């Protein structure tokens, strides 16, 4: 069971967009921005509140790549694998991060819930390829070594 505070937050967000079907996506986006994932129970609640069938709400949520039913880490690292980054060797950067964090193609978040590593298609900073973002902050011209340094920097922040 989710804490009551989640439902209160959801109510607040729903009020902001209005109880209509077209509000579904923006509401889900705001909930995800708040909790870094979309709790399934909360989606059921939202669907009922805005008059959308639960099945429809889940079909929409699963269609879009941005929504995740799994909780994500404190730092969400998105490695850009757009064309420009790809030809400037972005995948070795991602592999280095995954290796350092002990992640696999099935596990994207570290057990301590600190880091999530994902691939994203294009961040629009192609001039500085390869890039990655940490919680939406863009880091330019990455190399596997710089990526590892970045991790220690981020780890330093938690102390």
């Amino acid at each position: 069971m989710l804490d009551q505070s989640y439902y209160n937050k959801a109510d607040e967000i729903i009020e902001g967009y209005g109880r209509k079907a077209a509000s579904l996506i923006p509401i889900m986006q705001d909930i995800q921005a708040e909790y870094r994932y979309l709790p399934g129970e909360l989606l059921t609640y939202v669907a009922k509140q805005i008059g959308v069938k639960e099945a429809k709400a889940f079909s929409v949520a699963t269609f879009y790549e941005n929504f995740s039913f799994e909780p994500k880490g404190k730092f969400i690292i998105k490695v850009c694998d757009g064309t420009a980054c790809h030809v400037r060797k972005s995948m070795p950067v991602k592999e280095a991060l995954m290796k350092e964090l002990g992640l696999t193609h099935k596990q994207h978040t570290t057990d301590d819930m600190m880091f999530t590593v994902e691939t994203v298609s294009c961040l629009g900073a192609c001039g500085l390829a390869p890039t990655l973002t940490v919680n939406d902050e863009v880091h330019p011209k990455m190399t596997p070594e710089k990526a590892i340094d970045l991790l220690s920097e981020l780890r330093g922040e938690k102390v």
Partner: protein
Amino acid sequence: MSITCKEELKVHQDKVNQTIQAYGCRILVCCGTGCIASGAQKIYDEMVKLCSGMDNVKVEMQKDLPHLGELGVVKTGCQGLCELGPLMRVEPYDYQYVKVQLSDCKEIVDSTVKEGKPVERLFYKTKEGELCSHPDDIPFIGKQTRIVLENCGKIDAESIDEYIGVGGYSALAKALLDMTPEEVIDEVDKSGLRGRGGAGFPAGKKWKQVARQPEKLRYVVCNGDEGDPGAFMDGSVMEGDPYKMIEGMTIAAYAVGAQEGYIYVRAEYPLSVKRLKMAMAQAEEYGLLGDNILNTGFNFHLHINRGAGAFVCGEGSALTASIEGNRGMPRVKPPRTVEKGLWEKPTVLNNVETYANVPKIILSGAEWFRTIGTEGSPGTKTFSLTGAIENTGLVEVPMGTKLREIIYDIGGGLKSGAAFKGVQIGGPSGGCLVEEHLDAVLDFDSVKKFDAIMGSGGLVVMDENTCMVEVARFFMSFTQRESCGKCVPCREGTKRMLEILEKIVAGKGEMEDLDRLEELATMVKSMALCGLGKSAPLPVISTLKRFRDEYEEHIVQKKCRAKVCTALRQFHINAEFCKGCGKCAKNCPAGAIFGKAKHPYVINNDLCIKCGACKDNCNFDAIYVEA
């Protein structure tokens, strides 16, 4: 405060310009996505700190210019040379500084701001060693023709006052006060403006079709879902000059009789969303958006929708479905978007760059617009130039400009002098152009003849270190992942094509695979439901046509000449450099390295799994890769 007529707009414009001239010095810090990533925000903060209190950089705040700051340190949109960021311009001297570091700020203030002297070491230096003090001296910028991007990098991207200062909203005033909706549509139609989203459908024709519909409730929608990996032009326009695009949309709404509009921005562009929201609020405050615009009784309300990470939403019917709160899946057409678009109502759907072209067309006229570009594709086109190129960044050139000019004259040629191999135009839905196309005239119609599309304008340059088979696999994996799954040809076809390409890069391909690939590509191209599906095979078709020898090398000789395909690499130990430390053998997960301490080791390539662990761990650089 609202602006209610042309005269008031003119008064406002003059006042802005007088005020701007009153600053002894203005510092324009590029705060586009690229420069912010390079640390521009910190530079901006530092300049604000250093300059506050300096009379030279200050003006008296005026009550009726609420969006013109007291301090002349402003954030602009993309100044163009993303790779050399953070960028800064200093007016009135028109100095362009590149790679500005925090430690440079004090010197800039002491020399330039206080004394008007340049800091020469921050100027751009050409390959020949020439210093460029002004933006237009830099070949990359000077050789462009900027219409859509004319204000980008020159005005405060968060101030409607500055936009009005450079003549903003006079096109809207002209349209609303001097022209009938029909005349506006006629002007756009005569200009020959074609949709910049990729397909190049004439915008005027589209507007006419919407205006003709019997249904009176209509919508204007802007496609800012720039999903092509390797393209950031629209993002730069939204960030750098959001007003222009909003003005263009408002004119479109007036022309087709719409009262409501939506901007659909992809989720990866948070800065665009922020700047658009600011711009909309300011425009509403001035009575240039919302109810009773310019006191004419015309109402237009604008909303922003953020995408949620689906490439297919760049397709018209998928985009409108997404705004409605549904899965973003294309539907069968007809009825087309102009007849039944958003909420089944007639809808004008154009992309960011198309709308951004509109104000200038209304202001300077269709005739003027037609003097730029080619007969069939008038105007300019923005490109994002990236990949293995010396100068990456944002480029705007007249339609019909040769690829050679873009890559060599503007882009400065290939990085570190590598050999040119090809350029991917139009992203995953486009194709690959090669040497023989360098001197061809580039416009909507010519590009189609080369099995590519103009697309939204991504240009990714590839050199000899890029494997074309791998590139085809990369694009196919993208389109396969992004296929919405509604129609069988795209859902299954892209999957099967990807499997074949994966097989080839893994060194397990057969010659028959090439025929199968071709057959599948033709089938998907002709049978998929939407434009994205239909264009998904283009990268395969064009690379197969132009780089068939590379495919065959992968299959027959098991060789990747670019040394990219991991499975085809061969690791060797250079006996001369090897000290026999045995570190490689210890780190080899496959047990493929043999030898005796203090004697050169050897790799057995039959056992090798090509992971590269040996190379990464060698302290003597003794391990090399052979294609």
